[in-house]
């Protein structure tokens, strides 16, 4: 008989070029494995979104990155739901044909997957997304009209949406070196930072599950395409995975709250994050609470490791090893007992 679930957070920050998880939903196999090992995995859209590809598993909880930070800080709890009513927010900057493509993805998800989608709103002015890169090499981005995003989101919430999928027009950078490197598996996802800014802003202001898909012109065929980027080349939009992920995303419940069926940070038994990207809010909040942190070897553009931050972590050479550590924690086996040498107790 297997022990009861060990709720676990999986963080693979977006836009830092993680070897695993820095592309089009290419951390999904790892997330599925960790969900099986823990019985309950809370993770964010960057891990789960593979554009036209996705995976639905009741053990996987899809929580936007800033909501994960607030959950880790004990500010909100998560309430599992059967289904969300998805509002679809479209940037007024999207051309008509591209807008139709996205509406038809939503129609397909209603007809073929049974998702509850609508209301739909178009922002009252173009959102004006721009992309940038930090000194570290991490991708960042901006919105020229953030208040237009919030106005449209508020309209959707008032019309009954319980979760919001956003599609913003992103600048096409056809022929750029960054895009070429990304498609060939050696670069940072240049869109990811701006995507995170959009979903963070909407989620924190409206208190609803939110996620983002970029609207872009289709790319020409690249025969050297890296398999990790292939999920984004299957269709006209990246929206399908967002709609599926949000359809069962847990409600975000502001604490303190009395409800009994909430998932709270106090129940979390572990956090898994890349060994070189431990300097985020969720990781620090969990570490400061004494939640065991499993630091996985997963190279990226950052080198912010446990020793630099004075954190005690369990090191794992791969997500497969991290799954073993989670299973040990779930079964009440000290991970130290699985390693050699085993130091003597100090009196």
């Amino acid at each position, binding site marked *: 008989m297997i022990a009861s679930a060990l709720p676990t957070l999986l963080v693979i920050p977006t836009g830092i070029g993680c070897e695993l998880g820095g592309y089009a939903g290419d951390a999904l196999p790892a997330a599925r494995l960790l969900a099986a090992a823990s019985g309950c995995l809370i993770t964010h859209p960057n891990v789960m979104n593979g554009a036209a590809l996705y995976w639905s598993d009741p053990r996987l909880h899809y929580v936007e990155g800033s909501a994960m930070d607030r959950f880790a800080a004990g500010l909100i709890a998560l309430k599992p739901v059967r289904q969300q009513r998805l509002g679809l927010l479209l940037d007024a900057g999207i051309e008509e044909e591209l807008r139709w493509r996205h509406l038809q993805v939503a129609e397909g998800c209603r007809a073929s997957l049974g998702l509850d989608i609508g209301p739909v709103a178009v922002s009252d002015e173009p959102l004006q997304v721009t992309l940038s890169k*930090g000194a570290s090499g991490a991708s960042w981005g901006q919105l020229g009209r953030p208040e237009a995003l*919030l*106005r449209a989101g508020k309209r959707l919430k008032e019309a009954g949406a319980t979760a919001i999928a956003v599609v913003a027009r992103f600048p096409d950078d056809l022929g750029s070196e960054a895009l070429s490197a990304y498609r060939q598996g050696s670069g940072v996802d240049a869109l990811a930072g701006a995507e995170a800014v959009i979903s963070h802003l909407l989620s*924190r*202001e*409206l208190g609803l599950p939110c996620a983002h898909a970029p609207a872009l012109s289709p790319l020409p065929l690249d025969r050297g395409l890296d398999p990790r980027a292939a999920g984004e080349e299957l269709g006209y939009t990246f929206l399908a995975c967002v709609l599926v992920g949000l359809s069962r995303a847990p409600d975000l419940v502001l604490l303190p709250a009395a409800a009994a069926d909430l998932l709270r940070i106090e129940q979390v038994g572990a956090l898994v994050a890349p060994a070189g990207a431990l300097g*985020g809010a969720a990781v*620090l909040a969990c570490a400061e609470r004494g939640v065991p942190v499993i630091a996985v070897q997963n190279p990226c553009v950052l080198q912010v490791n446990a020793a630099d931050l004075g954190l005690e972590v369990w090191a794992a050479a791969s997500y497969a090893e991290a799954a073993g550590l989670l299973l040990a924690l779930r079964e009440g086996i000290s991970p130290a007992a699985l390693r050699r040498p085993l130091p003597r107790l100090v009196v």
Partner: protein
Amino acid sequence: MRPAALALQQFTLQPLTLQLRRQPGPLLAQIEAALRIHGEPLRWAITAVEASDFDSAGVLDSLLTLEAVLLV
């Protein structure tokens, strides 16, 4: 979370790169306080750590680089 009424006021998103000398005590609160001097943190990460060492009191002495986007 900010009240909805505030959400519709004019504001901008501003990028910020900041260096922070770590002090004794929990790190998260130090970071959030340093960022709030400049605006409301929307997204941030420690992107580099320089020359860490333990001081005479056993506290890790390090200079952190933060990259952030703030609501201003």
